[in-house]
C-alpha cells in the first residue's frame, strides 16, 4: 500500500504569503533571543531538510539528468551525455507501448469500480448500528495485508484447480469451468484487477467515510422533513457533500493504478506474452535486472509526466463541475 498524498495549498501561495508577512519586521531591532531562535530553529529543521534534499530532490534531479545519459548501475565507463537516445529507443519499443496500454486498461477498470465499491462499503457502515466496528474491521482487513502477501495468496487461489475455480463451479452448479487465470493472456490482467480492487477498496472506504462524516446531519434532517427519498438524499445531499473527497479518491486511485508493480512482480513477471507488464515493471526490469540506469530513468520520467498530467486533468475536470 502506498500513500500518495497531495499538498493542500499550491506551494506558490505559501511562498507568496511568506514574502508579505516577513517584511514589516525586517528593519526593527532583533528582539532578545532572536539569534538563538534562528540557530535552534534551523538546527531542528536541518535533519529532515537535508534528508529530503539527499533522497528526494537530488534523485529527482538526477533521474531527470540520467535519462539523457548512458549511465549504468555498475560500469567502468564514465557517464556520457547521449541526448534523447533513451527516449527514441523507448518510444520505438513495442513492450513500452504494451505496458502503457496495460496500465491504462488497469486504471480504466480499477478507478470507477474500486471507488464505487469503496463508497458502497462506506455507506454501509456510515451509520452507527450494533456490530459496526466488527464490519469496519473486516472490511479493512485486506488493507493491512501486504500487497505481496495478497498476490501470493491469490496466485494460489487462481490456479486451474484452485479455490476461485472451485467456487465458480460450485455456485454455478458446475456450469462455469473457470480458466487458468494467470497463464492466459486474456484473463491475466482481469485477474490482477480483481485482487487489486479486493485489497485496496477498504483503504478508500476510510477516505469516503471521513468525507461522509463531515456532512452535517442537519442537512439529512431537513431533507427528511421535505420527504426526500433515500435516493434523493444521496443524490442531493451526500453526493454534493463529497465533492472534495471525490477528487481526492479519484486522484489517489489513478496514481496508484498507474504505478502498478507488486502484483505483477510476484504473480506474472509481466507475462504471459507481455499481457500484464507495466511501466514501473519495465523500469525495474531495465534499471535493476539489466542495470541500465539511464533507460530506467527515462521510463521513470515518462511515468512522472503521466502522473502530473493525470492529476492536472482530474483537478481541472473536478474544478469545472463545481
Amino acid at each position, binding site marked *: 500500500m502506498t500513500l500518495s498524498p497531495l499538498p493542500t495549498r499550491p506551494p506558490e501561495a505559501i511562498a507568496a504569503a511568506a514574502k508579505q508577512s516577513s517584511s514589516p519586521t525586517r528593519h526593527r531591532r532583533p528582539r532578545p533571543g532572536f539569534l538563538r531562535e534562528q540557530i535552534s530553529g534551523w538546527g531542528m529543521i536541518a535533519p529532515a531538510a537535508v534528508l529530503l534534499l539527499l533522497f528526494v530532490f537530488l534523485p529527482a534531479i538526477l533521474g531527470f539528468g540520467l535519462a539523457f545519459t548512458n549511465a549504468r548501475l555498475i560500469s567502468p565507463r564514465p557517464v556520457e551525455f547521449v541526448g534523447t537516445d533513451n527516449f527514441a529507443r523507448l518510444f520505438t519499443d513495442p513492450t513500452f507501448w504494451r505496458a502503457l496500454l496495460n496500465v491504462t486498461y488497469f486504471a480504466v477498470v480499477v478507478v470507477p469500480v474500486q471507488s464505487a465499491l469503496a463508497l458502497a462499503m462506506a455507506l454501509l457502515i456510515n451509520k452507527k448500528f450494533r456490530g459496526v466496528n466488527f464490519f469496519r474491521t473486516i472490511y479493512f482487513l485486506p488493507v493491512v495485508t501486504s500487497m505481496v502477501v495478497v498476490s501470493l495468496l491469490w496466485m494460489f487461489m487462481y490456479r486451474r484447480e484452485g479455490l476461485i475455480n472451485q467456487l465458480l463451479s460450485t455456485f454455478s452448479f458446475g456450469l462455469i469451468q473457470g480458466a487458468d487465470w494467470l497463464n492466459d493472456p486474456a484473463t491475466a490482467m482481469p485477474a490482477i484487477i480483481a485482487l487489486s480492487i479486493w485489497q485496496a477498496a477498504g483503504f478508500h472506504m476510510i477516505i469516503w467515510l471521513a468525507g461522509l462524516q463531515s456532512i452535517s446531519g442537519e442537512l439529512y434532517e431537513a431533507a427528511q422533513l421535505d420527504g426526500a427519498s433515500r435516493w434523493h438524499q444521496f443524490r442531493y445531499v451526500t453526493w454534493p457533500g463529497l465533492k472534495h473527497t471525490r477528487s481526492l479518491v479519484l486522484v489517489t486511485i489513478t496514481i496508484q493504478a498507474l504505478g502498478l508493480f507488486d502484483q505483477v512482480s510476484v504473480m506474472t513477471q509481466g507475462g504471459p506474452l507481455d499481457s500484464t507488464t507495466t511501466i514501473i515493471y519495465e523500469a525495474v526490469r531495465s*534499471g535493476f535486472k539489466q542495470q541500465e540506469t539511464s533507460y530506467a530513468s527515462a521510463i521513470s520520467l515518462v511515468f512522472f509526466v503521466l502522473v502530473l498530467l493525470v492529476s492536472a486533468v482530474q483537478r481541472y475536470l473536478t474544478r469545472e463541475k463545481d
Partner: protein
Amino acid sequence: MNNQLLLRSAGTMLVRILFAVVAAFPIVFMLISSLKPDQQIFGDMSSVAAFLPIGNISFDNYAAVFDRVPAARFMINSIGVSAVTVVLGIFINSLCAFALSRMEVRGKRIVFSAILATLIVPFQTLALPLVWWVNQLPYFELDGFSLEFSKGWLDTYQVQIIPFLANAFSIYLYHQYFESIPKELDEAARIDGAGWFKIYRQVVMPLAGPATATVAILTFLPAWNSYLWPLMVVQSEELRPVMIGIQYFFQLNVSWGEVMAYASLITVPVVILFIAFQKSFINSIASSGVKG
C-alpha cells in the same frame, strides 16, 4: 410501514454480510490452509472444509518454513528496520514540524512549501535513480578502532532506513497538529527559562499523542511491507526483510501449505497491531483524506 422498514434494514444487513464474506474469505482460507498438509488443502477445496480447521491440523508447515527459509532472521530484520524507521522518523519529522510551526525562523515558509512540493513525486519515479545514487554515496564504518571507508550503500541496513526517515507527509501531519496546540504554553515555559528543545520535548510532544500514533502507523506499514526497494538494493540473505522471503518458495516442488504458513506468519503481527490500535489505524488513513 414498520414491516417495510424492518425488511429494508434486514436487506442492508445482508449486503453488509456479503461484503464481509468477500473481504474475509481469502484471509480465512490462508490461515486455515497454513495448518493443513498439501494433500488435504487440495482435497478440501471443493467444499466448505476449505475454511474450517478440521482434519489433519498441525503446525508442521510452520516448522517446515523455519527449515526452508531463515524466517526468524527475516523477521528480526524487518522488525529492526521498521522500528528504527518509525522511531527516528517520528523524532526527525516532529522536530522539523515543531520549528516550522512554533518558532519564528527566517525563511521557514519557503522551506515548508519546498517540503510539501515533494508530496507530488511518487516513490516509483525516484526508485531507479535512487538505486544509482545510493550506490555512489560514501559509507563509513567503525571497525574496532579503525574507520573503514567504502563506496556504495547497496546491501546494507542503512539503505533500507535512511532514505525513508524524512517524510513530507509526516511533517505536514505534525505541523497541522502543532498548530492546534495553544502557543501560550510555549510562552509560559519560556518565562520559566525553558529552551526550545525542552519545550519541544516536555510541552508540545506529550500533547501530540494522536499525531504520533498516526505517523507511527503510516511509517510502519510501508516499512514492513516494502518490497520493490529491498528487492533492488539488498542481496545478502542476512539483511533481507520478510517480504523478500517469499522468493524462497518459487523453486521446484512448491509446498502451498508452507507458502500459506509463511504468508500468515508475516501478516498476523500486522493484523494483531491493527486490531489493538484499530482507532489509530482508521484515523491515520482518514487523515490522508481530510486535506481535500
